[in-house]
């Protein structure tokens, strides 16, 4: 146990108990723990309870995965990598085609004299709104996420 910077005697005792259970006590620390346990019966009772917990968890292990999992593992990761590129290309293509389709449609509708002016204005507002929303989402994804200093901090 190398971290000696502890705030209180209780904290020190707790850490000594943990290090003792996990075999990370130095010779001097072992003596220190013994003295603490002799002086505080409640601490000794707690130590004994922790020892029982340790004895139980020591007999247990993570259940092994079936062996065939490992032979297909890299192939599955590789598929994910390919799918990622596929999705980017698909999204880019879809955005370009949809934008072109929307532009062509709007242009045609505006040129059509039989369509009432308020329908044309609504359609224009709808198109401009969709573009603003799209740009806003893309901007947030690309720039804000990149500059967010605390994006990796877990809440």
């Amino acid at each position, binding site marked *: 146990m190398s*971290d000696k910077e502890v705030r209180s005697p209780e904290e020190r005792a707790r850490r000594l108990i*943990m*290090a003792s259970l996990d075999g990370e006590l130095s010779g001097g620390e072992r003596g220190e723990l013994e003295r603490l346990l002799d002086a505080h019966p409640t601490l000794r009772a707690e130590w004994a309870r922790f020892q029982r917990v340790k004895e139980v968890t020591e007999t247990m292990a993570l259940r092994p995965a079936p062996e065939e999992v490992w032979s297909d593992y890299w192939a599955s990761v590789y598929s994910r990598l390919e799918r990622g590129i596929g999705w980017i290309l698909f999204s880019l293509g879809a955005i370009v085609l949809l934008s072109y389709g929307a532009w062509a449609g709007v242009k045609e509708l505006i040129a059509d004299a039989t369509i009432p002016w308020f329908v044309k204005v609504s359609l224009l507002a709808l198109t401009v709104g969709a573009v603003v929303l799209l740009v806003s989402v893309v901007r947030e994804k690309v720039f804000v996420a990149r500059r967010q200093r605390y994006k990796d901090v877990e809440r």
Partner: protein
Amino acid sequence: MEFAFVEQNEASERALVQRARAGDRRAFGELVTRYMRRAYYAALGLVGSHEDALDLSQEAFARAFRARANLDPELPFYGYLYQIVRRLCFNFLRDSRTRRVRMEEATPWLMNQAGAKAAAADPGRSAERSELCAQVQAAIERLPEREREVLVLKEFEGLRYREIAELLGIPIGTVMSRLYTARRNLAAELEGVL
């Protein structure tokens, strides 16, 4: 002899990371093969389900490759990967929908090390052990995620305090405090059976 092997291993990992950073998928594949078991078991200890651990650990590798520009050949690759694994696992656990499904489909992810031989020799004792194992598993699942993480790294992955501290980027004292709280909570949960 052992030192030479460690150095050689580190040098080969550094070379693989450098190649992976440049987009070499074969090199990245070697890193995956090297660390897939560790990543899987780390995820299993955190989420407690084979299917989810497999999915999350594979996703972590995929994300590590996509963000390969952040890889530092001078730092251990597993440390970088583990940060992604734990973030994915914690997000997964926090997702209320997944939590609901998980409660409905609880599967055993811990086992008694005594194994099948002991079970054949004494079936009564074996049933008792399985029951205890299920209780310990349920108690660990109820621990807060950070306590569970430290407990799993210590008890089931066998890491030393220094290694846990390095992996999580926290002081050794914090590792010990979390371990203390985890064991205290575990002791309280298992009071009737200990």
